[in-house]
């Protein structure tokens, strides 16, 4: 069973623990500038939104890569960049409709979320449950439950 990162922006406080955890997991340095998940602060609306790769099935980045440096990790479904093959051409960054694969000047390669080999550091670090790692088939389960709770089912009392 594959799992997906599930993001609930309403729970995000903007603390950036996820960005610290992601960058440390991948680079050994606490460095939000190199995080693969980003928190966007729409300050005038009071909204904070975590955003990262959703691991598309037909991944634009993977299809665009001219050297086949992006492969599917069959154990997780993550689209993973093989840094030994990546030539840093950045075509994938143009192809991705969501902007979630980016070039890293320090390595000369692109980087994106790889689900940390099935144990995403961001989800572990999130203190509020805004980022969770759930069954990929049921990312909508919580929201369905919320709406289900509002369904007006008459219950016979007598």
């Amino acid at each position, binding site marked *: 069973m594959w799992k997906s990162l599930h993001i609930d922006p309403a729970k995000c*406080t*903007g*603390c*950036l*623990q996820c960005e*610290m*955890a992601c*960058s*440390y997991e991948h*680079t*050994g*340095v*606490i*460095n*939000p*500038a*190199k995080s693969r998940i980003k928190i966007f602060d729409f*300050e*005038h*609306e*009071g*909204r*904070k939104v975590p955003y990262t790769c959703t691991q598309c099935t037909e991944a634009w980045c993977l299809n665009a890569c001219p050297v086949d440096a992006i492969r599917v990790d069959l154990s997780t479904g993550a689209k993973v960049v093989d840094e030994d093959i990546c030539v840093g051409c950045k075509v994938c960054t143009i192809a991705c409709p969501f902007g979630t694969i980016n070039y890293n000047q320090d390595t000369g390669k692109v980087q994106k979320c790889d689900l940390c080999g099935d144990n995403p550091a961001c989800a572990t*670090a999130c*203190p*509020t449950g805004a980022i969770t790692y759930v069954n990929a088939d049921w990312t909508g389960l919580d929201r369905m439950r919320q709406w289900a709770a509002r369904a007006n089912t008459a219950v016979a009392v007598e």
Partner: protein
Amino acid sequence: MGWNKKVLRVDLTAGTCTSEPLNMEWANDYLGSRGLATKYLVEETDPTVDPLSPGNKMIMSTGPLTGTMASTGGRYTVVTKGPLTGAIACSNSGGFFGAEMKFAGWDMIIFEGRSPKPVYLFVENDKAELRDASQLWGKTCWETEEAIKRDHHDPQIRVSSIGRAGENQVLFACVVNDLHRAAGRSGVGAVMGSKNLKAVALRGTKGVSGIRDFGEFLKVTTEKKKVLADNAVTGQGLPTYGTQVLMNVINEMGALPTRNHKDVAFEDASKISAEAMHEKRETDGKAQLVTNAACFGCTIACGRISAIDKTHFTVVNNPKYWGASGGLEYEAAWALGAANGVGDIEALQYANLLCNEDGMDPISFGATVGAVMELYEMGVLTKEQIGIDAPFGSAEALARFTEMTARGEGFGKEIGLGSKRLCEKYGHPELSMSVKGQEFPAYDARGIQGMGLTYATSNRGACHLRSYTVASEVLGIPVKTDPLVTEGKPELVKAFQDATAVFDAAGICVFTSFAWTLADVQPQIAAACEGDWSMDKLNDVGERIWTMERQYNLAAGFTRKDDDLPARLKTEAAKTGPAKGLVSGIDRMIPEYYQVRGWTPEGVPTRETLERLGL
């Protein structure tokens, strides 16, 4: 490690930026942030210097836990000699600016001299340069932050700046970062303004790599986050209600200073409380509170993001204030509200927005307005002099005074002097509710006796954050003490003062201390930093920082008589509530406090005390 071991020295007179190694001997004795920056100031400046002259320095400093996943590890401190007080000034702030300084590779930035023209410092990792700020001068903190991000085409830059209050050298001007976090007290923003330094803009992409034992650090910081999450105050009260959770609590115990400390309870407290911020308004059906928010690395998230009522008279014609923004926090709601008898929560949020926008400390500002309203009611100040009728409770006067002070217009220039100078000027020095020239925060020294001693002995003038004995006297953390008695308070205050100095020096938020004791912080520091960071050592570090600050103030000319409260709190008993009939027992507590500290009856640290602390 924990430190980057690198200091950026900015000579504003010469216009140069140079890198130098951090003095690791001092880091070992003073840890970081508040402690380490004060050590630099003490070593490099004359304590008798005019705070607004080029001879004063201003230091922005992080701690070893700043920029790490230790919960709340995002804080930085601005240390300088304060123009409001003439004492050591040390104001700390959250937001994201402090962590960015670490990510850019620096521990500390020292500003010295005075630039011949307005400049801002731009730092991108190792690169640091002063840039022309003539186009930014006259702009608010909000406009400045936006303009810098736009000009550099980089929304990820973090900015700390002064608004018009700092430019005009309002004596309680603050330094504002990330739109609504502030190094708030003692007028550090006026010092920045005196140096013609408009802003500091940082971009750091190097990150923090110098953690002594990363495995241990991750393990222990994760454990300690759980302690915060499981605690009723840090896990529930603060995230849900923010610091405003205290408004009704403190009011009910008769310790909410009201109308310039004439009263100890405010009849409209519930209208300006956390609960009121959650209530839907009649006008638009929306609550003032939009959401809570965290500073960098904070797993508590006490910050308030609110939206003002668009139909309120203060903003009905001014859409720029309609969006979500910071506030109200307890101290601001008290100082702008109860201290002036104003129970209109939308007017308080308006005044709070202006304080953030132009960089003013809402505590000192609000408390000064309280003194003005009392002088007005006494007939000492007239409408002709101040431009508006200003009885206690006037939301219109509060709003107008905030605009005038932020912009440096008319009577606002006099409010900008703070209550001590203003009350002296009009012949009533006794009406300034301050210590060492700095206004009280939101706890009455008659109803919470330990806070009276906290205010009287605080090295930066009246302040609640130097030893928050409210935790013990009101909330029972770590042990419950009786708020109405003076017995045991000198020991309690000393213990809080020394421990708090370590929290501040580490780069974490003092609000963690609702759940953490120093024993929870110690393993986090020890995992991050090389060297011995035992409890014994940290206790010494805290006491050393406190005593060093004291020594600075003594050298600046302060004496025993400055460790005192205004006569009102010593002679006018509380009229209502549990403290009814009580005055502050400060005169009993001070001699005992000096004794507990190992100071002479004149409040001077003895040779033995100094030697014990290596001072």
